[in-house]
């Protein structure tokens, strides 16, 4: 059953108030808690028993599937392998996310390895939020990996967010784009205290007319540190763009390494990167509207990570 902490975590990572409509699979402390399938969306445990396979029938429209993970067991490091097979012409939303509640000094962690096969002309929107909470001092680690394969004309929109409370994160996103496919990744990571986060992104624009846009927004508070790697590897006539902005607060540090590889003469690749404190003209503007300095800082960060 869901206790209050579970409910709180589910609300934060998956916007769930009670059980969602449609298909879902809730995993708690390494075990299946509850599952529901729908006429078009099937969920089954994989052969090895290490995760789930979500199969979405071709042509499924406007349906969603929630697959949150919650952790509140001291000392547990939960690893899960999930596969998503999205049929041709489907248009679906997948809401994932992991919330850790740490009540003791023992570490807790989760590694979710998510693989997406997006069929011809299918569209998927994937929303993933990571969050740590609890009064315990144990290290909270979240290491998500997403691997995306886009078939002809497929598109995927990935919204990946690490909200707060995660001590260590090693994030990996990999994608291979088929012909006429489109990938949009927006990653937002906020760290504070002594937290560290590394994000490694490798996007291969394999086929003609594929397009990818990777946006990264990082905020480092306290003494936290983030490292961001992103590679767009173009192997056909294609378009790729990386935009990575980092805001440093307090004594945070950041390394950002966008890289572009054009292996085809018609590849068009661009990137924009910036690291810096909150722009003073933004602060001044909001203060001139009546906000205090602290309110202005919070509002700017809130927008930046929106």
């Amino acid at each position, binding site marked *: 059953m869901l206790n209050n902490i579970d409910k709180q975590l589910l609300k934060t990572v998956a916007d769930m108030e009670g059980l969602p409509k449609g298909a879902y699979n809730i995993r708690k402390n390494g075990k299946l808690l509850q599952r529901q399938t729908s006429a078009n969306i099937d969920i089954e445990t994989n052969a090895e028993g290490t995760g789930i396979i979500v199969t979405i029938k071709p042509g499924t429209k406007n349906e969603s599937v929630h697959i949150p993970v919650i952790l509140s067991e001291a000392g547990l490091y939960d690893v899960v392998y999930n596969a998503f097979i999205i049929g041709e012409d489907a248009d679906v939303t997948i809401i994932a996310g992991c919330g850790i509640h740490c009540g003791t000094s023992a570490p807790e962690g989760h590694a979710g390895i998510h693989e997406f096969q997006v069929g011809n002309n299918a569209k998927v929107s994937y929303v993933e939020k990571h969050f740590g909470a609890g009064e315990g001092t144990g290290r909270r680690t979240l290491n998500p990996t997403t691997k995306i394969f886009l078939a002809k004309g497929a598109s995927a929109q990935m919204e990946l967010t690490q909200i707060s409370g995660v001590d260590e994160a090693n994030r990996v996103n990999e994608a291979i784009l088929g012909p006429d496919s489109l990938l949009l990744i927006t990653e937002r990571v906020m760290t504070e205290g002594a937290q560290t986060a590394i994000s490694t992104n490798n996007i291969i624009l394999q086929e003609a007319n594929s397009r990818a846009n990777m946006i990264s927004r990082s905020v480092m508070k306290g003494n936290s540190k983030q490292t961001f790697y992103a590679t767009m590897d173009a192997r056909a006539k294609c378009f790729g763009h990386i935009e990575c902005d980092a805001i440093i607060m307090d004594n945070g540090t950041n390394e950002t390494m966008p890289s572009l590889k054009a292996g085809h003469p018609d590849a068009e690749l661009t990137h924009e990167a910036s690291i810096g404190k909150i722009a003073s*003209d*933004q602060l001044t503007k909001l*203060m001139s509207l009546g906000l205090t300095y602290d309110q202005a800082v919070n509002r700017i960060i809130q927008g930046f990570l929106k």
Partner: protein
Amino acid sequence: MLELKNLYFTVPISDNGNSGERNIIDGINFTFEQGKFYTVTGPNGSGKTTLAKLIMGINPISRGAVYYEGRDISSLTITERAKAGIAYSFQQPARFKGITFRDLLTMATGIEDEKQLMDIIFHVGICPMSFLDKEVDAKLSGGEIKKIELALTIAANPKLAIYDEPDTGIDLWTIGPMVHLLKKEISRHPTTTIVVSHNRVFLEAADVVLIIDKGKIAFSGDLTDALPFLTDLNVCTYRDSCGGNPDAE
């Protein structure tokens, strides 16, 4: 309602190893009266923006004082001055990420209600309704962001409104209504209005024209008397557009 007393803004300069000081605002004394329309002009780099920022508290005063409604506000923060009823439209407005015009309007007015926000936009008239959910980011055109900047100041219902070059980038069809709007606000509240501009329509609209040159007030008075100064100082757009003759089109 606003009194500048022996106001200085001084910055350190170093020239070939010699360090010294430069008075960007160089001892300004002036009193602005409630409900009047002031247009401040003067050559590029003469100190107009710096003066406006001293009034808003964005630049620290080096020497002298600013009195507002009879009280010395020289040590108040920007926030406190905003709360006291001073609003400021920047010459170069800030651009954000993830903040919309709606968000800024709510910050300026405390109003979240959709209907009331639409009423404000309708009242201002300068910005189409479709602006409401536009992000105030690098994608806005120069004119669009200036319209938003002006609308925010009017929405705040200030007692003292300062507009730093509100007309730059604004299309010809909007400038007339803009002047009309500022005048309407003056008669409604009455808002004391200070506009920094080189534009003839703002000079003509003003009760008082102020000419700043090298950090000092070179002239204050009505436009007719200001004309010889304007020609002397080569205040570019005015002269270019009418050759120094106020009747020329």
